[in-house]
């Protein structure tokens, strides 16, 4: 689907440009500053609502319009489908665990990368924590999956 073999030469440059705009927005909105997120969560400044819902408003229009404009995405040939994630208990459990971390630190993944871009080297603590947390859940879930299915697909 997005493998590198048959990929359009503009695929990677476009992803870079998209990331640039995305990161500029996180910097401009001040969401890359943990203090601003914590002020929002403590009801001292509700402006952050405009970041998430402003972003969702733009994607909402584009996600709705594109399937009516084009059959397939020009750089991948993929259909403009809604790739919806299935709902299960993990969404709520994981969301709650994420919420504890977000409320404690004021940092989420995208904003943490952007924070590095605005010169906040202290954020490396949060990035280290995120990789550690993602590794811990991957290790634990790999073990659970491998014990159910004794033939692992990945190279170990």
């Amino acid at each position, binding site marked *: 689907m997005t493998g590198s073999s048959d990929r359009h030469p503009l695929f990677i440059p476009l992803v870079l440009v998209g990331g640039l705009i995305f990161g500029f927005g996180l910097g401009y909105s001040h969401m890359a500053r943990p203090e601003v997120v914590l002020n929002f969560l403590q009801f001292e400044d509700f402006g952050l609502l405009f970041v998430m819902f402003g972003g969702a*408003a733009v994607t909402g229009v584009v996600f709705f319009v594109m399937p009516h404009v084009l059959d397939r995405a020009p750089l991948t040939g993929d259909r403009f489908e809604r790739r919806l994630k299935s709902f299960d208990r993990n969404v709520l459990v994981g969301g709650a665990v994420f919420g504890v971390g977000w409320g404690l630190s004021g940092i989420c993944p995208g904003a943490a990368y952007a924070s590095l871009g605005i010169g906040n080297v202290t954020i490396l603590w949060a990035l280290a*924590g995120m990789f550690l947390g993602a590794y811990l859940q991957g290790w634990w879930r790999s073990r659970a999956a491998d014990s159910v299915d004794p033939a692992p697909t990945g190279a170990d």
Partner: protein
Amino acid sequence: MVADPVPLQLAAELFPNGISRYAIGGLFVGLGAAVIYVGTGISAGASTFLESTLSYVSGQSRFQQYVASRDWRIVFTLGIILGAAVYAVVYQGGAWTTDVSWWRLLLGGVFVGIGTRVGKGCTSGHGVCGVGSASKTSIAGVLAFLLVAILTAQIVAALGVTP
């Protein structure tokens, strides 16, 4: 024309820094995700980068499903860092660093790292792309992490932890 002072005062209390920086920033965040979607059909989130990058160094079966997307996810993340750096150079006038304690960042990061992967998304994947596609799963995820984050931040503040 005289403006009604009550809504103005309310706006000053709820939005002490105004709303333009937040609204304009949010529009750019959405535009960045939209550019990638228009070209590729991918609705990109920021947190899968954690697992996909771990696939370079770990053979755990959980990470191998992201091998196909790990290179462009690194490019996306580098773009985010560079885009924020452009903001810093043009508007911020130099580097800015947080005063939040290192242990809060580290411990919070661990919870975020576990939670976002178990919960299938983060503030950009669920909050911007998922809500934008009216996904009920994402709306439930956003409500879950928003409510728990508010509760956590209030408790941490009540305990007198600053900054």
